[in-house]
């Protein structure tokens, strides 16, 4: 017989889930040089001199660079259009969108990009009971106060790349502006309880300290969503985003603008005063630039939860000791030995086979899964094989 039945009570183990951790970056690396990062802001705008992130051939051809830019770990990924994360800018108060020099945005399009972005992340990440503003811990680690800035930078990791989650505790990013650099990590290693959101604090994951640094209201990490939220004003204060326009990052990219939260006169939304904050649509490109401007490595690890079925293949001593392999028998062509006669006398006295492949079949004998052993496994009447076949989904 070539088929053996599996006993569902003893041979099949269902409901197992394995967590698989690996680096987030190409080739499973945990580290990636930020100065090698490439974004597609200029690629999708007209030129590095006069980019138009808001529109394409007409004002109705709204570009996604109005909302976010993709960031690639290297030129190869950029050439393959294989982004690893996106950078956005959101503003709670923004009622219109567009730079001060691109008044078509405010006059005609009214796409409200920063407001749209803020609301997207508000809906995604904040609970109904919360105020509607992201809250960042500030001050003493023991007794922090919560601050609620009204504009944010966002890093949104590619779902395809991050699988099920970004690992808290293995996240580090450096931001570099006109005033200097800061390296940030999440505070999960200092906490005793797991959470769905962690505050970002200054420090490296390689630091040996066990003392939680003071909070500065810098940012939040949502590991399960693969999103990091940064307090734009605090980042501006710490590293300087207001005087970076025209600066060149190590990768050669020129910062297209300064961080800007000025107002545009003439926009009146019913029920609200005119002259609301109209942040530039280029703020997200400024934040992408300060990431690329850092001569450091960004450290990110991801996790994947893989449900699996385990099948215990039991080849008992009396089973599978003969083979249909054509080299196992004579084929009858020599006119002396009949077809099917076992070729090797040793295999007649001591039947022996070498297992290389396990096939799993359904009740109509259709081959639905196959597994290969790393090397041939001896099978005789004197031994038994127990092979655990794991089928991941």
């Amino acid at each position: 017989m070539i088929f053996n039945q599996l006993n569902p009570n003893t041979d099949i183990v269902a409901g197992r889930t394995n967590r698989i951790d690996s680096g987030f970056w190409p080739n499973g690396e945990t580290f990636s040089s930020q100065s090698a990062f490439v974004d597609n802001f200029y690629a999708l705008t007209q030129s590095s001199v006069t980019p138009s992130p808001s529109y394409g051939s007409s004002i109705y051809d709204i570009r996604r660079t109005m909302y976010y830019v993709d960031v690639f770990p290297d030129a190869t990924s950029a050439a393959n259009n294989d982004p690893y994360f996106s950078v956005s800018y959101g503003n709670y108060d923004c009622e219109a969108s567009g730079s001060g020099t691109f008044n078509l945005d405010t006059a005609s399009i009214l796409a409200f990009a920063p407001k749209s972005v803020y609301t997207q992340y508000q809906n995604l990440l904040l609970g109904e009971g919360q105020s509607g503003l992201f809250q960042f811990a500030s001050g003493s680690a023991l007794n922090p106060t919560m601050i609620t800035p009204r504009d944010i930078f966002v890093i949104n990791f590619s779902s395809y790349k991050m699988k099920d989650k970004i690992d808290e505790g293995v996240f580090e990013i450096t931001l570099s502006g006109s005033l200097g650099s800061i390296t940030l990590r999440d505070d999960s290693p200092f906490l005793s309880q797991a959470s769905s959101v962690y505050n970002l604090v200054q420090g490296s994951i390689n630091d040996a300290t066990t003392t939680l640094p003071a909070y500065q209201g810098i940012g939040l990490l949502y590991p399960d969503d693969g999103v990091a939220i940064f307090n734009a004003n605090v980042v501006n204060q710490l590293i300087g985003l207001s005087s970076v326009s025209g600066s060149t990052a190590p990768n050669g990219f020129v910062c297209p603008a300064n961080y800007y939260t000025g107002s545009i006169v003439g926009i009146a939304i019913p029920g609200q005063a005119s002259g609301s904050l109209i942040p530039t649509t280029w703020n997200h490109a400024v934040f992408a630039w300060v990431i690329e401007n850092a001569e450091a490595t960004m450290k990110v690890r991801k996790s994947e939860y893989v449900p699996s079925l385990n099948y215990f293949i039991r080849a008992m001593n009396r089973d599978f000791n003969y083979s249909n392999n054509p080299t196992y028998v004579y084929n009858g062509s020599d006119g002396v030995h009949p077809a099917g006669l076992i070729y090797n006398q040793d295999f007649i006295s001591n039947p022996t086979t070498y297992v290389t492949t396990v096939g799993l079949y359904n009740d109509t004998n259709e081959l639905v899964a196959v597994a290969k052993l790393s090397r041939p496994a001896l099978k005789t009447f004197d031994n038994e094989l127990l092979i655990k076949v794991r089928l991941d989904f």
Partner: protein
Amino acid sequence: MSYCDNSTITVDAILTTKGRQLLAQNGNLNITSFALADDEIDYTLYQPNHPNGSAFYDIAIRNTPVFEPVSDETQVMKYKLVSLNQGVTSIPVINIAQDKISVPSTYTGTISISPSTNPAYNLTLGYTAILGNKNVGVLIVDQANSVNSVSSTIPTFAGDVNTTSAQVVVGQTFRFIPNSSLGQTTSTTLTIIGNESGGSLSIEVTVTVPTTSA
């Protein structure tokens, strides 16, 4: 501290194309049985006269590198291991009366295909018959068995059979009817596989189209 228990071999499986199709259709695989195979092994490399002794008889076989699994279910599990009583000297061999089938497309007689196995085998699950090109004719199951009579897939290796152009039937005996409307003489392969022994037999099938004189 102790050493790792290496009595269990752990391997990862992949779904075959058929498995993915069934999973998408039915939501489950309903795996009920398994089989073992030794596709990569060349048993003629067993060296009972190895100068270093019996521990080295199978050194060439044990060091044979093994391929990674492929998802094409027709290209894996070609040579299955079979459970037989100790002491047998032959592996069950499948026989049929014909060493080839060559008939005109207009043939209306009965071409019976009655596989047998020596020593006796495949009595319960019967045989899988695979006609490589179903344009040449049709296989009909004359005597079904208790398991099933039609298979929607090629369950075992059948050479480089194109799954979409082949006809696969399961039973104890079969009948071949040539395609009377065939446009040109065509040859293909008929493969008979023992569903219990795993052994197989292939013969050539040619359906000729008579030439018409002007």
